[in-house]
């Protein structure tokens, strides 16, 4: 409201009581500071794109699959995997020495069986170890690989900045 507004008679409007925020003890006609000026919040207006991002974030949080925290069983299965890998390698070596330590055909047949059995044991151990130790890393690596493949191909201007051309040489490469 302008301070110079007038009513229909051309007279300034009569004050109808103290304005909001003014203590009633102030006599009428005494100039006062009036209501405080509106101070907008520093980041009041949230752009529509951001509201979309927040909605997307809320949806993503809702769709987030929360895994149970790592249990003792996970750790035990990881070590079982390590143990099976070692056992498989040990079985292979054992079968080798077993077959070379005898001339008996039957014993050598047993050694062959043992040696072949070592392969699935090692594979099972490797699978368990992979699942319960490296899976997080592998998933992240795979996600990055997929994202890199899905990204649009770089234009000719970017060809010179390909990772293979700008990677700094390290002492290990010398």
């Amino acid at each position: 409201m302008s301070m110079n507004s007038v009513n229909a008679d051309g007279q300034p409007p009569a004050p109808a009581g103290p304005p909001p925020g003014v203590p009633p003890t102030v006599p009428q006609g005494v100039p006062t500071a009036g209501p405080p000026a509106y101070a907008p919040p520093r980041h009041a207006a949230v752009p529509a794109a951001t509201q979309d991002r927040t909605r997307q974030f809320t949806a993503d949080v809702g769709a987030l699959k929360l895994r149970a925290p790592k249990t003792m069983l996970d750790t035990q299965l990881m070590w079982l995997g390590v143990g099976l890998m070692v056992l498989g390698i040990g079985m292979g070596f054992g079968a080798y020495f077993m077959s070379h330590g005898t001339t008996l055909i039957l014993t050598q047949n047993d050694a062959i069986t043992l040696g072949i059995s070592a392969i699935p044991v090692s594979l099972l151990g490797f699978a368990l170890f992979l699942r319960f130790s490296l899976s997080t890393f592998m998933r992240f690596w795979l996600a990055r690989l997929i994202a890199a493949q899905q990204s649009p191909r770089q234009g000719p201007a970017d060809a010179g900045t390909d990772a293979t051309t700008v990677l700094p040489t390290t002492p290990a490469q010398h």
Partner: protein
Amino acid sequence: MTLNVADAQPAGAPSAPPLLELRGISAAYEQVEVLHKVDLAVPTGKVMAVLGPNGAGKTTMLKVITGLHQPTAGDIYLAGRCVTGAAPVDLARIGLCSIPEGRGVFPNLTVSENLWMATYRGVSRKEIEEKVFPIFPRLEQRRNQAAGTMSGGEQQMLAVARAIATNPAIILLDELSMGLAPLVVDQLYDVVGKIAETGVTVLLVEQFARTALAVADLAAVMSGGRILQVGTPDEIAGDLHSAYLGG
């Protein structure tokens, strides 16, 4: 004593859940508890500055939020859903972005390669560079330079740029000004202010109170693993001495 940020909300504010909320969070390093039932809420699109001296538990609180450190008690809520125990990679993927103390850039990679790390969010390299380089022209000049050979301020710019490139919903900033010249700090906080103007929710942990309060909508004072005070920057600025020194 723990206070809730709801105390600092204006009356009649919409009752949407805060984008980020901690409820009764406690955390410990082995037997030593460093966070004691911390309650904190960051409303959507706001900048909250958490101030406090060394050892107050600020960085630990950020680690708990990002899932890098498991709390011993309490829960973390994102957009109203409890996400306690979520894997850091999952939280990062949905848009919870953290800029750690010490910048966290890859020193042997170039500036461009550091920025390309943000492609895990499904953004192309070209888009990332188009988004970031206008904000940080100096990074464009040094795009083929190894990040480890840049100054501390430039590395911090790179860390912030990489965060922006991921199109985050929440940014956690840990000691942005650590070890930097005041001029560089001002430049970085200008960028934080611009990020905030786009409506991204920012949780800022800082020792330099005045600098942080200049860009914050809300502020909290933390000491001894507890939130001592939550309020508007003006309220907090008025009580800074007592908050830091007691009395």
